[in-house]
């Protein structure tokens, strides 16, 4: 890519282990507990 440089790719995770609910109560900066 000549004009576009990707800094961060697909940070809204929609696959793998989702919805386990083990993450800390709060959203923008929290860490996924299962990972």
């Amino acid at each position: 890519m000549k004009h576009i440089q990707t800094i961060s790719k697909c940070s809204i995770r929609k696959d793998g282990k989702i919805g386990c609910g083990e993450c800390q109560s709060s959203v923008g900066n929290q860490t996924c507990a299962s990972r």
Partner: protein
Amino acid sequence: MVKAFISNLSGSERYFLYDVESGSLHSVDSATFLVAKKRYESLSDNENQLYEKLNSDLIAEIESEIVEMENEGLLNSEAIIYEIPYTGEIKAMCLHICHDCNLRCPYCFAHAGTYNTAKDYMTFEVGKSAIDMLIKMSGVRKNLEVDFFGGEPLMNMAVVKQIVEYGFGEVEKAGKHIGFTMTTNGVLLNEKNRKWLNENMDNVVISVDGRQEVHDALRVSANGKGSQAIALKNAQEFRKIRGDKRYYIRGTFTAKNLDFCTDALYLNDAGFDQISIEPVVLEESDALAIKTSDLEQVFAEYDKLSKEYVERRKGDKWFNYFHFMLDLKHGPCITKRLRGCGAGSEYVAVTPVGDIYPCHQFVSDKDYYMGNVLTGEFNSEIQKKFFSNNIYSKEDCKDCIAKYYCSGGCKANSLHFAGDMNKSYKLSCEMMRKRFLCSLEIYAEEENNNV
């Protein structure tokens, strides 16, 4: 949905594209910024004049790259509707350890800690029943949380200690984990309390508004005396023993200190590296309230703080600012982003007499009474109502660039200021979007600097 924005953090203009549905962030050149903004949003008159000067071959080349990114799902990606299964599990509780306070801050939503109720103090019996209910209702959840709140929780420390000892023992038997936290005004944070909290609390939040004249104008004792000197000194002593464990110095800014960047930096200069200065939430008719007419000044202050933040994080004055922290690499999954704080659905507040409410902001609102830990009564219909309140149920969130980082905002604020949990508190939304854009700029700048 794609947001094109410009950052001046580095002293020169840098151009970015943020893809809302995928969360992808891209750095682009000025020509690509114009082509993308024309494609996804609209150009201002000045931008349109610049666009008209672009070579047609260059535009075609850029559009080809944009289409390639779209095909990879990194620009203008599709929104996908996710089903969130209702389980009825509760994993976190806010224990109002007492409805009493040694301060009389006029902006306090709890009205001197009383929530307009009697000055009740929680007994161990109520606390024990709350822990039992939490474990019972947590289902398969392993990680549980209990926050000691008030009022001023240090005014009932003997019961706090009993509950913590009981809680640690019971979760061990249940094969679970529990994290205790406390929010305090710092006045009673003496050496004995500091030592115990440091050993037993996962997180300690201490309220200091910043400069002495700012803090002491509002955070006063019953006889009107300012509390900054004692709160700051105790917080600094706590910081010395806290090491790398979690704490926050949390302040409120009002219409009286719209130059709140100065207060954030004051706290950093006072030795703290975990800081949050947050806008007061009051009716616009209140003299202390942030008003729509203040937003221009508030935004300028966030810009000023962003620049200073990036500079300080390069050296000895490194600090975290709660509302600028953004994780674009290891953040939570889509369902957490849709659900947000979980108030009323997986998190509840318990009053000193054991009554249950959706969160601390709803306490004493009888329309939202959910039950009692002593009787075991629990209203799952209210829980389901809160569970169904998410980004999908809020029309205003659908086209918002910050929706996956704000998760629909505070349910209590929506109810109190917009009249409906499924509507938005516009003033708060404006500030949230501004902070989100500042956070993206900071993130991009630090990635560039490798901080």
